Structures are given as structure tokens and as C-alpha cells.
């Protein structure tokens, strides 16, 4: 896949960081404002997809085996399941909210919900990037 024009590349350079930061914001404030792990994770993944689309898969490293997205995705799934198990061991039941609830509307509140949002965001972002890299590095026929 070839890269796009220098106009697209310049706009992408200016905006990809802001899109990534917005995704992180949506994930971190998932228990306070609309959004959460799934929505924010897709926004983070979209920042990477924009980078690869604008610069082309030849300029950006798109080797699936060298990419860390598979590691991030597996970590997210495993950590979410671990949070549920810790609730069972440290508390009383599966998915028990074992961290103190804190004050309503504060960033550090709602027990383990922010942690769960972060690991789900990591899983969704890793999944989006992994699928897109796999599709982008796919070679059909004789195309290099």
C-alpha cells in the first residue's frame, strides 16, 4: 500500500497525537463521562490506522511478528479476567469490586472500574491495530 500525498501526511502528523490523546482521555474518564474501554480503545486504534494509511505500509513497520499489538491485546484480555479472579480471591464473589469506591465524580473513584476500562481499552486498541496490520501487509498476487 502506497502512502498518500504530502497534504494528507502533514495533516496526519498534526492530528494523530491529538486523536491518540483523546482516546486515552475517553478511556481514563470512562467511569465519569460517556465512553469507556470499548469506545476509547477504538479511537486509540484509529490513530494508528490513520498513521499507517497516510504514510503507507512500506514506510511504516507492518511486520505482524515484530508488532507488539498482539502482546497488548493478549495482556488486556488476561488482565480483565485477572481482575475478576482477584475479586473472587480477595473479596467474596467473581467480579467483586474490591477497591474502595472513593468520592463520586473524582478521577480516582468507582473501585476497579477505571482499571477494567484501561485493560479493555488496551485489548480493543491492540485488536484493531493487529487486524489492520495483518490486512495492510497482505500481499495479493505479484504486488510488492
Amino acid at each position: 500500500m502506497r502512502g498518500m500525498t504530502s497534504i494528507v501526511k502533514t495533516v496526519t502528523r498534526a492530528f494523530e497525537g491529538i486523536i491518540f490523546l483523546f482516546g486515552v482521555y475517553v478511556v481514563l474518564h470512562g467511569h465519569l463521562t460517556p465512553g469507556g474501554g470499548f469506545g476509547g480503545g477504538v479511537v486509540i486504534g484509529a490513530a494508528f490506522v490513520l498513521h499507517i494509511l497516510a504514510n503507507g505500509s512500506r514506510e511504516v513497520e507492518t511486520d505482524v511478528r515484530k508488532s507488539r499489538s498482539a502482546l497488548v491485546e493478549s495482556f488486556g484480555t488476561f488482565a480483565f479476567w485477572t481482575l475478576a479472579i482477584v475479586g473472587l480471591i480477595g473479596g467474596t464473589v467473581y467480579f467483586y469490586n474490591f477497591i474502595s469506591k472513593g468520592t463520586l465524580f473524582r478521577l480516582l473513584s468507582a473501585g476497579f472500574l477505571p482499571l477494567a476500562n484501561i485493560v479493555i481499552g488496551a485489548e480493543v486498541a491492540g485488536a484493531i491495530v493487529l487486524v489492520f496490520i495483518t490486512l495492510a501487509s497482505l500481499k495479493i498476487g505479484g504486488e510488492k
Partner: protein
Amino acid sequence: MLIILCGLIVLMILGAFVALEAASLLSSAVLLGIIGFSLTAIFLILQAPDLAIVQIVVETLSLVIFITAILKTTSEDATVRARARLPFLVIAAAFVVLFMVAVYWALGSMPPFGQPSLRMAWPYLTPEALPRTTGAANFVTAVVLDFRGYDTLGEAAVLFTAVMGVLAVLRKIGRKH
């Protein structure tokens, strides 16, 4: 507000019909985008910003993937049309009429718009109860991650399995020629 909603729904239905009949696959993909973005507007009007965020990002991504696939392959619509279309059209029209009658009959027994009859979750989600049940200010996150955590774990597992399936289908090593 009801008029805007009805207009958006009519726009979505028209977009779906024209997407089926469009000659070029590229215009079909753009018309599918109209359906998705109208759905985003409907979610915003019905005050569901959580769904709107996910819908707008997923719609944009899938539109990009559709258009990339069309540009890489072909935009020619290779659908083979059946010669005798009239019987199928009659059967489809009969089904639509039957479906409308069933929907009218079912909607008559529903409670008024905005007053759902299910009140089971309401005591847990009042502004007074929320600080001691989950402590999350966002109702949707409270339900998705705490009350229905099993469901979300299943969703995460489904996503993980889907990605593993994509990797297994598109892998390079071990593929037989």
C-alpha cells in the same frame, strides 16, 4: 424531535434501497456510510453519546476498509439477477405486509415512549444509590463493568477470538500452495 427521527429513519431506508440497486460498488459503500452516520445522529438525538462514539468510529473504520478493498479489487457489481423477478417481488411484498401487521399488533401493547415497564434496575441506579453500589458517575459504565461484568468479559473474549480467527486465516507461515 419525532419528525427528525422519522426523517432520519426514512433516509436510512432509502439509502439501503439505493445501495442495493447502485451500479458501482463504490457508491454502494458511500450509501452504507449514510446509513451508519444517520444511526449516529439518531443515537445523539436519543441521548446515548456512548453508543454514538462507538458507532461513528466503527462506521468510519469500516467505510475506510470497504473503500480500500474496492479500490484494490474492482468496483464492478457482479450480482447475477434472476430472470423472473416478479414472483420474488410478490413474495417479498407479502412478507413486508405481514411483518407490518405483526409490528402494529406488537407495538400496540407497548408502554408509552420514555416510560419503560421494566423497573428492576431502577433502585440500583438512582443518584442516591449510585455512590454506594459502584461509585461510578456514568450509569452505562456502572452497568457494563459492574452489574453485568460477565457479559463484558464474554464480549472481550469474543473480540479476542475474532482476532485470532483473522490471524489464522491470513497467516503466511504454513500455508500450502
